[in-house]
């Protein structure tokens, strides 16, 4: 589901920030996940070598992606899997639609796939009169709430259990006021079992696709991807074309990193390797480009395609934790989303690379060592050059450039500023000044450094 909004990250974050206790709770919950990640990472003395190795493997993948894709396709076909290619979201959605309708299927169960969020598959199928039920608990919750996920690993991290209780009471018939996570999870279990047993089609994402063998791996804790895929006649697996890894043994590297980075578990409960379809059943893989080949050609940003979607950069990001996933108004929120989204639509997502303090924490936790904060900085420059910054920012930056290039203007500007702070503080301590939000403006010094220095020189003579 998409956020049908033209609001910027700053505006959406401001709305999220109105409820301060909730912001604190959101912040602390995600920081707790980050700490769990640290505990696991510190248990492995070879952690940094693991990250470096994973990054290098992905480097090799990106340097020979077309070859690996062809190899993967050939092996998958040999395994009896049908392979489709989609240039963009629309083509992907059409392929899914056709696979369903040509079998007379109008209801499908889907496990977590951020790619289908990126493609807005659910809305598309709904418009065509087809029903999709998300089977990951967190995704089911936001689906029932009519919202998109706010986090790629923890889709309903922004919701309180009482709110989830209300949603389940309305849609799944749980008792009014029930908010015990155990009871709510059991309610969803009963509901979803019925769904698994009655759906003829299941769609899943793909965590890793192995060129050498043509198999693909899906990681879940709930077992929902497997329940759906094993019971359905047709299993559709949607994958971004960057999901390739060269050899099966490389899974040993990536599976060690993925869940430790994501939730602080040593591995997910299930790491399922799909190679061949079951007898009388079908597996279809859809390989999706949707802007990825363009990103591959952007030298400064191609490393973003190494991402394995663990979400560690979100959990650690001070801006994400305090602004919430929905403020990024794109399928993949947080630091990684902010370097992926401008590639898809630079104008629409021009605000996202600015939604960062450039503190670099994201790059430090990234299991495949993507230089996320450097890329955020580089996107800012591209966006300004292309003229996609908001008018107010452009004017302010231009005024700044003129002032800084003229010593006379700089000095008189500084003096004016100090006078305003001293004699008319109300002119800056008000809501029109964005710097005043959540903080008092500082007291202005009596004199500038230049004035002080000159005076000091005079005195020494």
């Amino acid at each position: 589901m998409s956020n049908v909004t033209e609001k910027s990250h700053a505006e959406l974050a401001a709305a999220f920030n109105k409820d301060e206790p909730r912001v604190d709770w959101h912040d602390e919950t995600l920081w707790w996940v980050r700490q769990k990640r640290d505990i696991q990472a510190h248990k492995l003395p070879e952690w940094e070598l693991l990250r470096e190795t994973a990054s290098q493997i992905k480097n090799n993948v990106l340097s020979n992606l077309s070859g690996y894709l062809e190899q993967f396709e050939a092996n998958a076909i040999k395994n009896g899997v049908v392979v489709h290619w989609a240039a963009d979201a629309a083509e992907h959605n059409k392929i899914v639609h056709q696979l369903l309708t040509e079998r007379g299927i109008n209801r499908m169960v889907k496990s977590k796939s951020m790619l289908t969020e990126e493609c807005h598959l659910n809305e598309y199928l709904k418009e065509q009169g087809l029903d999709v039920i998300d089977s990951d608990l967190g995704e089911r919750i936001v689906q029932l709430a009519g919202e998109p996920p706010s986090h790629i690993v923890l889709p309903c991290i922004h919701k309180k259990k009482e709110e989830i209780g209300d949603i389940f009471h309305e849609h799944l018939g749980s008792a009014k006021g029930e908010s015990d996570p155990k009871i709510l999870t059991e309610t969803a279990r009963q509901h979803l079992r019925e769904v698994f047993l009655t759906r003829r089609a299941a769609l899943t994402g793909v965590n890793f696709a192995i060129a050498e063998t043509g198999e693909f791996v899906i990681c879940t804790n709930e077992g929902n991807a497997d329940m759906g895929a094993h019971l359905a006649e047709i299993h559709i697996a949607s994958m971004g074309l960057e999901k390739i890894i060269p050899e099966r043994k490389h899974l040993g590297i990536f599976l060690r990193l993925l869940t430790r980075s994501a939730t602080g578990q040593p591995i997910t409960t299930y790491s399922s390797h799909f190679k061949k379809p079951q007898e009388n059943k079908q597996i279809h893989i859809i390989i999706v480009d949707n802007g990825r080949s363009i990103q591959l050609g952007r030298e400064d940003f191609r490393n973003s395609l190494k991402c394995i979607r663990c979400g560690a950069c979100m959990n650690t990001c001070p801006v994400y934790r305090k602004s919430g996933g929905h403020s990024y108004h794109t399928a993949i929120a947080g630091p990684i989303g902010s370097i992926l989204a401008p590639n898809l639509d630079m104008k629409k997502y021009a605000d996202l690379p600015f939604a960062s303090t450039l503190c670099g924490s994201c790059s430090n936790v990234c299991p495949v060592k993507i230089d996320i904060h450097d890329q955020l900085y580089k996107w800012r420059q591209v966006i300004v050059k292309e003229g996609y910054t908001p008018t107010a920012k452009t004017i302010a930056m231009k005024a700044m450039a003129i002032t800084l290039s003229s010593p006379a203007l700089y000095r008189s500007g500084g003096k004016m500023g100090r006078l305003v702070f001293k004699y008319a503080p109300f002119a800056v301590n008000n809501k029109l000044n964005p710097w005043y939000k959540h903080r008092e403006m500082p007291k202005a010094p009596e004199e500038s450094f230049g004035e002080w220095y000159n005076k000091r020189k005079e005195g020494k003579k």
Partner: protein
Amino acid sequence: MSREKILAAVKSNQFSHAELPNVDILDALTASDVSQVKQYTTVATAGGSFVYEVSDFDAIKTILHKEFKAGVKIISGIKELDEYTYAGNVVDELAHSFADVELTILRSFLGVAENGALWLTETQMNVRVLPFISQHLAIVIHQDDLVPAMGQAYAKIGNADYGYGAFISGPSKTADIEQSLVIGAQGPRSLSVFILTT
């Protein structure tokens, strides 16, 4: 055709060749000659599994008799546990017919001490959906089949051919509601691991 278009775009945009790194160093770092039972048990227990060290199949039977009441539907993929329906005899049944299975017992020949994961292929599962659709799951493994880390696990799997395989490291679980851990999401509500020590 989108296939040709995509491959051409990827080909023209991929940069100069980067070599694959050596991954053997990592495997050497995690290699170990000591028994992995203790490490496995610690990690698997933390992940919500019940781990039992047993000397033989009779010991397993005793525990199962205690934990599961007579009369519930139990399927076993292990010939030695012959009082239950043998999984090999039900492979042709509709996958949906296993919806009322209370317990499935399967064999694994590869376990990983660093994360509690047990490797099973379709051959040991008999039916792919069995280890997921059962209310409870039990897996039997010999202590000599435990390796220290994932690197050794994939070395052991090698280039084996299978239709489907999975690492299973515990009961089905979720923490989607306010990060509170709940055991028993969409799959089994418990995982019992029996480690054969003789």
